[in-house]
């Protein structure tokens, strides 16, 4: 099974980005998930949820876009 996933949470209101991330990480269990976001709040929330679930978080941030690479 291909465990590389892209989760596009751009433009979604709280708590959907964090909820999507939580459910996706829980379902996959391990692998790599790229999360695309468009605001700092969602970025912090998803990072916190992922870290809490034991995933490694790499942030690639610019002013316009936020990309988190989650690995486990």
């Amino acid at each position, binding site marked *: 099974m*291909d465990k*590389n*996933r*892209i*989760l*596009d*949470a*751009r*433009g*979604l*209101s*709280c*708590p*959907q980005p*964090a*909820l*999507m991330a*939580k*459910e*996706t990480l829980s379902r996959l269990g391990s692998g790599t998930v*790229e999360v*695309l976001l*468009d*605001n*700092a*709040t969602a970025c*912090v*929330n998803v990072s*916190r*949820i992922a870290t*809490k679930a034991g995933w490694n978080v790499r942030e690639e941030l610019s*002013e316009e876009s936020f990309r988190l690479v989650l690995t486990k």
Partner: protein
Amino acid sequence: MSALTHFFTSRWGPILTGAAVGILAPVLVKLGNPGNMGICVACFTRDIAGAVGLQRVATVEYIRPEIIGLVLGSLIAALLFREWKPRAGSAPVVRFVLGIFAMIGALVFLGCPWRAWLRLGGGDWNAIAGIGGLVAGVALGILFLKQGFSLGRNRPTSTAAGWIMPALMVGLLALVSLAPQFGRDANGNPTGPIFFSTTGPGSQHAALFISLGVALVIGFLAQRSRFCTIGGLRDLMLMGDTFLFYGIVALVAAAFATNIALGQFSPGFDKEPIAQTDALWNFGGMVLGGLAFTLAGGCPGRQLILSGEGDADAAVFWLGMLVGAGIAHNFNLASSAAGPSPYGPAAVVTGIAVCVAIGLTMREPIVAAVRGSAATTGE
């Protein structure tokens, strides 16, 4: 700047913001605001609706600088930290309707979620039923979120759209400062188009620049920390995430301590300021409020903060609240110290039914947003 950002996005950010609200709100009461109403986004939006004539209850008319300050404080923080981003397009008309019913629910209880916690910190035990309703409403909203409820994605929009809400606030600031009185009443005295209560809660307020200054500080802090009283309950129940919940705890603790220090702590059910004692409809009003706020993505304070950051959908929600205040008083739905109005409960039930219909019908299945490898996403 990055150290500050790191601090505010740590668990200390919401705690500091909650503590600031908990301390400064009772101080505003000491300086003239109504009891346990140092800051209330619902009550103060209702007062603004009265001041501009959208409702004409003579005791609740004043352009509250606190609302203005929250938006402008957020705007300043968002601009300073490069987070100001005009965006729109996530089901605005649904958010407008949610704003209307959220306000009706809040005015049956007599307070927004911030005020519910401030009332608790002031010893008004009627708030407990309201907070129970709030928890139930958030829990109901979570059921819909778990089943894929979504108002859809917003999109970047024109700069002008992001500036409308801050510009509206500057306009309100001009109106409260200039207080234009173009009309004449039956006795020939100047009146309107901006109305100011001479008795009742609308006449009780701290000095304009103090209210504005306090709200600017809170707006700034809330933008940096993402403080949200609905998010605090929602994230705790939905994901076991305590990040925002500690902000609520800090708010109540700080309000309790500050009210004690200022001699304003008055425990009981009867004769509490701007409160009614009917537990059932304190609960019911906030079930509606909690549900509507959860579906809209945040408490009314948070909606103001988002609108200051350029979120035009959050601005539409607040405009819904403003219109909802007009409806709540013109249709005699809002409670008074005597209890719920004869029509309030029916409005609450209607509002819950509408929100449930919205919760059941607006969906974007979460699984559909998870795509395969980059090659298939077109990203």
